[in-house]
């Protein structure tokens, strides 16, 4: 079994989830409470990775972070590193790829918080930030957990994007799904079967635990 790949995938998924929490919360907040007319454009943009094939995403990302693009050049000039075929590059790809899996549950959780409570808090002079942390976040906890778990699980199972931008480096970009693919192609069916089974168990466990916890919170299905 390819433990290096499993470790890498878990690390990548944790980092992706963490960054999506940082990035996803403000986006979801804005999507829920903003009154801009062009809000639907941002909603569409966030949801794009749901419908775009990973190959399209991977192709664009490889061009966007490569040394020929301004982003790639800026990164190389400031850090001395290159993004393609690196963990950081893969992390950027994963964050973009899993963005809707975090933002959508976050946003629908925010939306389900009773508007009257929020407005009462504002009227009593509590700041927006304070209201967010002490009222909205606790009340939308199940949705936040769902978003994080889905980001984690989705990154763990990510394949097409990694195949396009990763370069298959052991310990750096060879994730579990790539490792399984390699073993199948190299006709090592046994190794592939073992790793696949482990991945299946982990994914099922993570989802089962989450949905089990959700029942306690008796929340509405947050993905709708």
């Amino acid at each position, binding site marked *: 079994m390819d433990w290096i790949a499993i470790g890498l995938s878990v690390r990548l998924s944790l980092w992706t989830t963490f960054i999506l929490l940082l990035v996803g919360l403000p986006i979801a907040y804005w999507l829920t409470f903003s009154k801009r007319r062009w809000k639907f454009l941002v909603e569409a943009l966030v949801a794009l990775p749901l419908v775009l094939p990973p190959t399209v995403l991977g192709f664009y990302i*490889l*061009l966007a972070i*490569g*040394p*020929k693009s301004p982003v790639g050049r800026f990164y190389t000039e400031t850090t001395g590193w*290159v993004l*393609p*075929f690196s963990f950081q590059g893969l992390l950027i790809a994963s964050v973009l790829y899993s963005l809707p899996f975090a933002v959508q549950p976050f946003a629908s959780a925010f939306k389900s918080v009773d508007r009257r409570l929020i407005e009462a808090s504002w009227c009593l002079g509590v700041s927006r930030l304070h209201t967010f942390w002490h009222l909205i976040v606790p009340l939308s906890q199940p949705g936040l957990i769902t978003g994080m778990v889905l980001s984690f699980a989705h990154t763990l199972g990510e394949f097409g994007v990694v*195949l396009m*931008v990763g*370069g*298959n*480096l052991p310990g750096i970009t060879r994730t579990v799904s790539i490792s399984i693919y*390699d073993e*199948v*192609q*190299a*006709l090592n069916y046994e190794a592939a079967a073992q790793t696949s089974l482990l991945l299946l168990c982990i994914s099922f466990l993570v989802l089962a635990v989450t949905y089990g916890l959700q029942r306690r919170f008796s929340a509405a299905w947050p993905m709708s």
Partner: protein
Amino acid sequence: MRQSRRNVLRRFFYAGLFGTSLACSNRSQPQNSLESGSQSIRRTIRVAAAADLKFAMDELIRAFHHEEPQIAVTVSYGSSGNFYSQLSSRAPFDMYFSADVSYPRRLAEQGAAYQGSEFAYAIGRLVVWVPAGSPIDVAKMKIEALRHPSVRHVAVANPKHAPYGRAAEAAMRSLGVYETVADRLVYGENVAQTLQFVQSGAAEIGIVALSLALAPSVHGQGHYWEIPLDSYPRMEQGGIILKWTQQAEAAQSFRSFALAPAGRQILKNYGFYLPEE
């Protein structure tokens, strides 16, 4: 307000439906007239081909179509190892062109080959390739180009399942550069993706098939140096017709075309050496 919006949507929907149906009818019409005109049933053979054949195969099919217009050939390109494992599970292809003769040979041993259909069609050649703007003079530096200071990533096909990857690794070892570049290697899924890594600039240099470097859409976009044939195991490329084909006759005529002088000339133009040469 809402009612009118729904009407607009509906109109869009019908317009789209109409457009698609128009496109479909347009496409099917000439084919029908062709069939009735030549009074023969149009047959299609499905080919699984190694990624290094991408451009040569397209040309081969064009030429073949000229000779046998009633046989259509559809191709899927990928890594030979991937096709091998798919074909072991009876993937619905009629023919298999591998970049490594050992895969079709193994399929034949498993009894997956149409009787006596094994064939060798080409010898693959490796080149070191850099894009046109590269500071590396690959013709002068030869294999040492891989050690050029500007090189951060060397793209090769995955040696685990792509024959060109195995050959590239063997060549780097026998030419004594493998140790120094080992930590700069990045692996493409097949030899065509390997080239794409270098073309996109994500890797500075790569080892790819000469047949790809010579392709019209790639030629002029970069420079290459051919790795001497004796520095890696001979890449004999071969194929088979699959036992479960419904189009044995059509497949056989495509096979003979690829092995006849006209077919061989095309393969030669695209940078393959030929067997028995």
